[in-house]
């Protein structure tokens, strides 16, 4: 599958730009002078070895970690260290890597919780999401704990979509899923993007992740090692050898 031609969009304004960011946990620095961006309408795939700091990038963008230095800008405004609840209202969505659904709440309640910050149109949006994800519609009343791994991942994605975010941060949507379902989840991610949401996605399944992305960023030890169009990264022998398992 060749990546969609997004050269037009990729040249658009940056919806997210991270510049010279250091960040980490307590005294432990993880991100080291990180600079990268997501242009309007893009899917950017963030790959790299375990512990490279991929999740830390998303947490720092989403205000779960305060950047130690540098700037994080969303749609032109500084958002570094801003409260996640405020970022949700500004149009940033986040799907965490783990524990990304409310297990004891029903599917429908999970979606409603995704839209707590909405003033109006909540019911309409949820109805649309049920149309787009029929498997959730069938399971409306079931608790999230009763769903399969793949269904849960779709619910986690849908929960973040209730706010109709401009920028969506997704941490390893395919983690722990059977190969057959991985494609479905990536299809869903792509559909979300087609409908106008810019996406920064962390992926362990680097080849599959890159294949639906416009650009890729390779992170290693908290800093950017490679950054290029996704198809070129896939063809780059060094990236292939070091980060894509040959």
């Amino acid at each position, binding site marked *: 599958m060749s990546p969609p031609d997004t050269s037009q969009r990729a040249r658009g304004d940056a919806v997210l730009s991270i510049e010279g960011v250091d960040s980490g946990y307590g005294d432990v620095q993880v991100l080291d002078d990180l600079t990268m961006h997501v242009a309007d309408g893009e899917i950017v795939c963030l790959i790299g070895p375990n512990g490279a700091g991929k999740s830390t990038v998303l947490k720092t963008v*989403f205000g*779960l970690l305060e950047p130690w230095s540098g700037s994080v800008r969303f749609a032109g405004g500084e958002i570094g260290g801003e409260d*996640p*609840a405020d970022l*949700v*209202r500004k149009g940033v969505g*986040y799907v*965490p890597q783990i*524990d*990304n*659904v*409310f*297990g*004891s*709440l029903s599917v429908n*309640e999970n979606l*409603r*919780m*995704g839209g*707590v*910050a909405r003033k109006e149109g909540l019911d309409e949006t949820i109805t649309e999401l049920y149309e787009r994800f029929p498997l959730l519609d069938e399971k409306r009343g079931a608790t999230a704990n009763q769903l399969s791994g793949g269904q849960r991942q779709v619910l986690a994605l849908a*929960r973040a979509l209730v*706010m109709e975010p401009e920028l969506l941060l997704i941490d390893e949507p395919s983690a722990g899923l059977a190969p057959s379902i991985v494609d479905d989840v990536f299809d869903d991610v792509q559909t979300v993007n087609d409908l106008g949401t810019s996406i920064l996605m962390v992926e362990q399944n680097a080849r599959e992740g890159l294949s639906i992305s416009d650009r890729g960023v390779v992170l290693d030890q908290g800093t950017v090692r490679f950054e290029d169009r996704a198809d070129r990264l896939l063809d780059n022998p060094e990236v292939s050898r070091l980060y894509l398992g040959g």
Partner: protein
Amino acid sequence: MSSLPQFLANGMVFSCIIVLGAIGLSLVYSIADFANFAHGDLMTVGAFGALVGGRYFEGAFPGADVSVFGLPVSFYLALLAGMAVGAVVAVLTERIVYRPMDAGSIELLITSIGVALSYRALVQLQFGAGRRSYDIGRGGPIDFFRETLGIGMTSRSLVIVTLTFVLVVALHLLLQYTTLGRKMRATSDNPSLAKVSGIRTENVVVAMWIIGGALAAAGGVFLGLDTIVRPRMGFDILLVVFAAVILGGIGSVYGAMLGGFVIGMTHELTPVIPLVGVEYDSAVAFILMVIILLVRPSGIMGGEAA
């Protein structure tokens, strides 16, 4: 009047008091994430709040002494006053003490012991260490219950059971069918995801303290109505309330209701157990708790959050 039905009736009343205390304790545990040792004394605060409220409302307006289900209107107003005091004290404590500390569960637990002592000291300073009671006539047993079931049930007991039922059902409706209730369950289920979803979890925590404080106060008022009002009343039943919470499954509100019921009943049924003295009522309740925990280590409803 010391038949099994009578002990069951007594058990119902005591269960109600424990259930109200256990719900708040469990809510705090599930959302604020610590075992609040001040919860028993919060019940005491509510009981004394109603004592003051009762004096204020008694004869304060025409109709204040009209009897509703055997108790004067002023008592119900005093109950509301006590619940309001419980809620306000709980929220203020969270604002002034717990929140600024920004500490872990163990530090908060230890702090709450200090808070408990402070509540009790303030109550004693204001009201002395003596025993008080609500200024309401001790009505005799209601004829209907004596004739049909052969038990002595006073209007006080009836009011306690009925109002507890109303409060528990109201809480259930709130948790299941309102946005605030869903937010409370979501926050208790997964606090970090709740934040990430845009829920203002600070506000949810305040709501939780209001509800937990008001219900604890109601439990305290009912304990005072059933027995007497004194500064150690809440502290003395705190362990039983804890047993109910642990039995039900820590952090589960519905578990707390069930655990409170089981523990309250066991406590009052001690007299019918052969060879066990009444003075061992709490011990029997604890033994039952241990037995159930051996079978279900996470409590009756443990693992099924909220």
